[in-house]
């Protein structure tokens, strides 16, 4: 943990958007994030509203399921990267029960920054979330620094 660079409070204050069509899994994520201390957590079970939420909320991190009815995670990954500016670093952590190598490759190719298969280890997922947010904060800080 690189606590020297980014303060824990700063990470915990960041906005997280979790998208999963399964109510129980959304509840698990919300529970996990609250326990970790995250304050700004938004959850969605209807993937058709995900892009709208993504645009409105401008989350710092997205937790995304892949297999969802109507609009699946791959389509959302494409939509997110179309929406974001080229120099934006807004990480997406894919959490899916599809364990095939094809799904893993496709998600990473479409811009997902990390991939964890369900059922996952809650501690591991918590660590990956904080790592990704830390990376985003460092990136923002670098971008804001003069002369860089």
């Amino acid at each position, binding site marked *: 943990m690189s606590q020297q660079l980014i303060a824990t409070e700063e990470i915990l204050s960041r906005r997280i958007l979790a998208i999963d069509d399964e109510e129980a899994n959304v509840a698990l994520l919300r529970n996990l994030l609250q*326990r970790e201390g995250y304050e700004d957590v938004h959850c969605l079970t209807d993937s058709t509203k995900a892009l709208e939420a993504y645009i409105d909320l401008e989350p710092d991190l997205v937790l995304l399921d892949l297999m969802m009815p109507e609009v699946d995670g791959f389509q959302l990954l494409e939509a997110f990267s179309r929406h974001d500016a080229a120099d934006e670093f807004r990480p997406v952590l894919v959490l899916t029960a599809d364990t095939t190598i094809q799904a893993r490759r496709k998600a990473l190719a479409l811009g997902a920054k990390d991939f964890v298969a369900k*059922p996952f280890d809650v501690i591991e997922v918590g660590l990956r979330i904080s790592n990704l947010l830390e990376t985003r904060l460092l990136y923002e800080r670098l971008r804001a620094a003069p002369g860089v």
Partner: protein
Amino acid sequence: MSTLPNSRTTRFWADRPLAYKGVVVIALPLAILIGALASLYLASNAEAEAEDDVRRAFAIQRDIYQVRAMLAEAAAGVGDYALTREDRFLEPYERMENQLSPTLQRLDVAIEDDRVQAGFQDLLRVVEQKREGLRETIALAQSPQPSTQTEIEESLLASKMTLDAVREEIDNIQRLEAIVLDERRALVDDVRSRFFALTAVSGIVGLLGSLMAVYLFSTGIVRRVSKLEQNAEMLARGERLTELPEEADEIGRLSQRLVGASALLRKREDDLRASEERFRLVIERVRDYGIFTLDTGGIVTSWNLGAERIKGWQAEEILGQHFSQFYPDDTRDYLPDQMLERARAEGAAEDEGWRVRKDGSVFWANVVITALRNEAGELQGFAKVTRDMTERRRSEDALRLAREDAVAASLAKSEFLSRTSHELRTPLNAILGFGQLLEIDLEDFSQPHQEAVERITRAGRHLLSLINDLLDISSIEAGGAELEYEEVDVAAMLEEVHDLAEPIVSSAGLSFEMALPEAGAKVVADRRRMTQVILNLVGNAAKYNVEGSFVRLGASLDGDGAATFFVEDDGPGIDPANASRLFTAFDRLGQHKRDKTEGTGLGLALSKGLVESMGGQIGYSPRKPGSRFWFTLSSQPTENSRPKADQES
């Protein structure tokens, strides 16, 4: 040649080489010319000789006259001297004494004829007598004792008589010489007439010989050459040459070769015709292929049994008809012409499609049209081979449908597996996730609740491994297991697995022994799946060996490039009655009830599936005490193994 009389001479002449004949024809007139020239030369020689003889005879006559004249003058002078004693009358005598000897010597040389020579010798004698008489007379006249007139007269008279004898001898010689001259002349005439006769005869003979040679040349060569030319023309027309000429010269041999060539040509022609006939008969009897020919315009010109069987037309019905009627309505207008055009341009044209039978029914045909060209490359027509492929097309269709069904079924199965996997994992995620969150706060719960939480998570994890194994087995059975083959170093691999499994074995209180093969041995396998199989076997050994003291992992190399991996223990072993059910899914042989050991009951079934899909075998053999599980892997790539595409894990 039959036009010549077959006599021995003619035959001999005909057999001579052409060079010989040429020499003879040229040499005959030449010989005649040389003969004539020689006789001319001889005749002129003889004539010159005769002329010399005549000239010599005249010289002899002149000299004899001179001798006679000198003697006569000397005698007259001596007579006058005797009477007068004046010295001037002795002048002719002295001249005679000076000139007579050279003249006589000349005559002696000139006279060749023996008879004349004999006369000449007589003459010499009387001339000597005469000279003696003259010398006596002069001596008498000069004697100091005056001789009587009578003595002188007597001497003169004797001299006169001697002179007469000389005259007689000279006349005799001249007569003889005349005879010799006449003989010479007669001889010359004889020689001349003989040469004339010889020249005439040789001229006539030469002329006849030349004519004969020309005749022989014209008959024996010119005529035969023209005959040869006719034969060559016949040969060119392909007619048969039967006469075998017997002459041994070049023309004769050439003619013989032509006849030989004609025979060879005829034999080849016969062979070709026989081969064509055999081929035609073979083609006619072919039943499975419709084979027929078309002229350049597409009119059917031959028809075999196969064509009759496939298309339904008898030969007599279809010969002379255009082949477009084999095509159905929708292609009849353009396809036949297109096919001929393609065959004309490319040598052959192949097509597969519907064709029409005589009764109007259609069949699926494979058609090859081949352009037939002669040696000059001119199009002679087309050969068409038609096969009825209806049955094959039907079976192909059936096969394709079956294949499509199989692919669809396989896809459906994969899709089902994938869905099942997802559907089972999704709820498990919540169960295990919440269970884990509860475990984190375990101290907050009362003892019974703590146990409940532990049960939930343990059961959840068991369910997860069941799901994983089940999906593995299903995907192997569906042929969907994605194996990534590579060369695996056996010893290094076993060391790695040893490190991984060490905690499991030692936590069961057992020693972990290794039996490594020699370094460098390799097998071709999917490394991850191979590890999975070994871990499963080691895990089983550790789990069930509650009485023994060790687990042994090792491998041995077979002679044929395969390796046998084994896991041994000194545990209770397997009941022989149950050994046959070892590799059956979910059949735990009652172990879980007896020993409460954890397990899905799928491990060995999964291992068996994995080993077999990698081309190996798996098995069990009892030890005393304990068990031995083994499996084999080949060092050669199996037919379904492929090199590992990338290093993706």
